[in-house]
């Protein structure tokens, strides 16, 4: 990082207030060309506000300056951000599944056309192939994006970001690009990002997975409550000091609690098959957390849906001796098997509904008399839930969309726990949730084991499984192939999910 080159991005005294609350309190930082700069902070620390200012979605208060490659950026204008050389790859990638790679790349840039606005398809495809190859990906540009693997899709999105109509790319902002990536594909993405860095592009990398930051980033900036608390080379930090900087306190470890006694079977799965899942047997007992690990395509996520009642299957699932009908979440819930699905926005949250309505929707009978809803009973129940699950802010009438990701997830878990389930099925319980809230969610789940609850937790995050689970089932090719028991380590779990692939390929 030579001091002679002008910074790729210089931010001075950026402040943003929404209503009365300060989201950013005078942020300053510099990022040099050819550096991977991680941006970390809990949900609500101001990361996304900062990114939204860069992308031209929000305007900061006067006094703030952003320079891209030495030129001042005009605020509140997405096009100005684009021409200045800022590029964004959002978590959802913004690709159109039905269109081919080449078509997706052409969106925003425009097609290469000949006489009569005829698209020069051959040249388009050639250009697309070359753009992807330069990032280390061999992908047929004629394939619809929907058929690609997650890391290939990410590559297409990055290729599109860095190739947008002319103009130099100074900074690429990657907002949680690894969230949906299996571990093996993360490495591939990292190679791509290093390639970009070596071309002199500055990268801002946002991730909740700290080990990724240590592996990839050169420097890291920590945001807390809208302030920069540190900007340091990654080599000067370790896992714990970074977490302390983010939280402003040391992290309490989850597994200090006494392991609860494991009781009778509360959930029995026998010979269950679905689309990918093949002939799975498993048992969850009262008072234990059974983790399920597996890479994408292993059937891990489908298993969560099957056992939660949200997908069709053949075979037998019974809860406390009661057989359950496939694909009927309502019957599963009535039998005490309650699930918190992955991808909250698509599968769990009721948008533009209040926190209260989101919490109570699964069962309104306690508040119903003669078919009439009694709001007062509902409200007092909701107040208790907000307290028990530490949902902040404690405003029951606020739309759920207004909460931070971690708090939204707590609402979803509270919705399930309120039903006093015998079995809780969690699918990616802390996806997109910051470290502090993650630990809190884990504590909440483990804390309720004493009541005789059994938990099945499916997660792509080995770290999480090692913290929350008593034993971990390993899935490969739709089957449970291994079981790890305490002491669990994230590395062992990750290694086990990959084991067979290493042998064969």
């Amino acid at each position: 990082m030579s001091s002679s080159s002008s910074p790729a991005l210089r931010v001075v005294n950026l402040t943003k207030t929404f209503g009365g609350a300060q989201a950013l309190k005078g942020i300053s930082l510099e990022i040099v060309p050819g550096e991977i700069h991680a941006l970390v902070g809990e949900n609500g620390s101001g990361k996304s506000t900062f990114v939204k200012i860069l992308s031209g979605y929000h305007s900061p208060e006067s006094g703030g300056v952003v320079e891209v490659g030495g030129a001042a950026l005009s605020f509140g204008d997405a096009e100005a951000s684009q021409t200045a050389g800022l590029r964004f790859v959002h978590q959802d990638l913004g690709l159109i599944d039905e269109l081919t790679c080449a078509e997706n790349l052409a969106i925003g840039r425009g097609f290469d056309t000949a006489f009569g606005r005829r698209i020069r398809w051959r040249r388009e495809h050639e250009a697309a192939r070359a753009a992807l190859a330069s990032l280390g990906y061999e992908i047929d540009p004629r394939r619809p994006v929907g058929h690609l693997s997650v890391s290939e899709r990410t590559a297409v999105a990055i290729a599109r970001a860095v190739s947008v109509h002319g103009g130099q790319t100074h900074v690429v902002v990657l907002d949680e690009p690894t969230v949906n990536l299996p571990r093996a594909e993360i490495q591939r993405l990292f190679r791509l990002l290093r390639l970009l860095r070596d071309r002199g592009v500055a990268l801002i990398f946002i991730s909740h997975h700290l080990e990724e930051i240590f592996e990839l980033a050169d420097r890291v900036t920590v945001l807390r409550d809208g302030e920069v608390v540190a900007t340091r080379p990654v080599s000067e930090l370790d896992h714990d000091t970074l977490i302390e900087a983010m939280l402003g306190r040391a992290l309490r470890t989850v597994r200090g609690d006494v392991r609860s006694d494991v009781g009778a079977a509360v959930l029995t799965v026998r010979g269950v098959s679905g689309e990918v899942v093949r002939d799975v047997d498993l048992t969850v007992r009262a008072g234990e957390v059974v983790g399920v690990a597996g890479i994408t395509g292993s059937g891990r996520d489908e298993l969560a849906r099957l056992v939660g009642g949200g997908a069709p299957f053949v075979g037998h699932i019974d809860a406390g001796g009661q057989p359950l009908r496939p694909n009927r979440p309502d019957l599963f819930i009535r039998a005490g098997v309650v699930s918190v699905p992955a991808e909250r926005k698509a599968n769990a949250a009721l948008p533009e509904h209040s926190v209260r309505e989101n919490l109570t929707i699964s069962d309104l009978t306690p508040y119903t008399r003669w078919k009439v809803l009694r709001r007062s009973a509902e409200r007092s129940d909701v107040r208790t839930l907000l307290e028990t699950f530490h949902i902040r802010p404690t405003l029951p009438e606020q739309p759920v969309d207004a909460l931070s990701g971690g708090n939204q997830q707590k609402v979803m878990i509270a919705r399930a726990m309120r039903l006093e389930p015998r079995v809780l099925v969690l699918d990616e319980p802390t996806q997109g949730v910051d470290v502090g809230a993650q630990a809190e969610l884990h504590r909440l789940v483990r804390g309720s084991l004493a009541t005789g609850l059994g938990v099945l937790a499916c997660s792509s995050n080995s770290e999480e499984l090692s913290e929350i689970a008593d034993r971990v089932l390993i899935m490969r090719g739709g089957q449970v192939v291994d079981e790890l028991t305490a002491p669990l380590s994230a590395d062992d779990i990750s290694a086990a999910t990959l084991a067979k692939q290493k042998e064969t390929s």
Partner: protein
Amino acid sequence: MSTTEATAAATQESDRDVAIPARRPRGRVVPRLGLDRFSGLYVLGALVLAYGIWLPDTFLTSETARSVADGQAIAAIVALALVVPLAAGAFDLSVAATLGFSVCLVAWLQGHHVNPVLSVLAALAVGIVIGAVNSFVVVVLRVNSFIGTLGMSSLLAAASYWITGGQTLIKGFSPDLLRAGRAQPAHIPVTVLYLVGTALVLWFVLEHTPLGRYFYAVGANPRAARLAGLRVDRLVARSLILAGFLSALGGAILAAKLGLGSPDVGPPYLLPAFSAAFLGATQIRSGRVNVLGTLVAVYLLGVGVKGLQLAGAPSYVSDLFNGAALIVAVALAARTSRASRT
């Protein structure tokens, strides 16, 4: 697609990490929302005031008030019928056709000297059957509700022509039935009383029973609702059956009021119903179709049109007004939801 869904689609953006709304100060947001939520009432007041000054002799009369109230009552019942499936995220384009068929059926039964009470009950039963068929098409055959009910509305138009022979049926209406549709107890048109009754019941169902809460949840996110344990298919079916019943009720009242049945009566009620339901979604409970908002919207549109007509505007002003209102309402709803997120 409900308005919530429509506006959500119009304003898709990442909701993770929303840093600030978590501590959104209530002081600034609530008054602004308050203005939005009741803006329809303010506009209604302003319209009455403006027309009152402009046309003091014709507009500010009890006759005009009665005529607007009476004229819009049926439209309001159709709009309320539509609110139910919209809340549950389903379109029902057959509400006006159901109303029209119900009018024709009552007129035909009257022409065959059927007891008026039986005639009305038959119309209501047919409304329920129409809703059930819609449900079957949407829930079991998985036809998009927009398309399925569009088809149903054409089927019903055909059925209306068939039973009336394309004629206007005026014979044999029982005087009791006509009285039930034309009475004015205490100078209030009886249709307004039917509307008030219907609105009260529906408001109660949507706002104060689990069923209403379930409808809105299904409309907001059917996948989430299903995984949270709601019987989504059954709820959508119920909403369509309720819509069929309410539309047929409107038709029975309209038949009693008009004393005739004709295949041309129903169809014009479709667009105003949509205008009112969507405009209503910007009112009272911003972002959701709702009973009170719909009533405000119906009368806002009714007063607007009435004043212009009294001032000598041509009859097509009504179509103009309703069409514009539909577009503006949906655009407004999209804007409101965007504004409330930043």
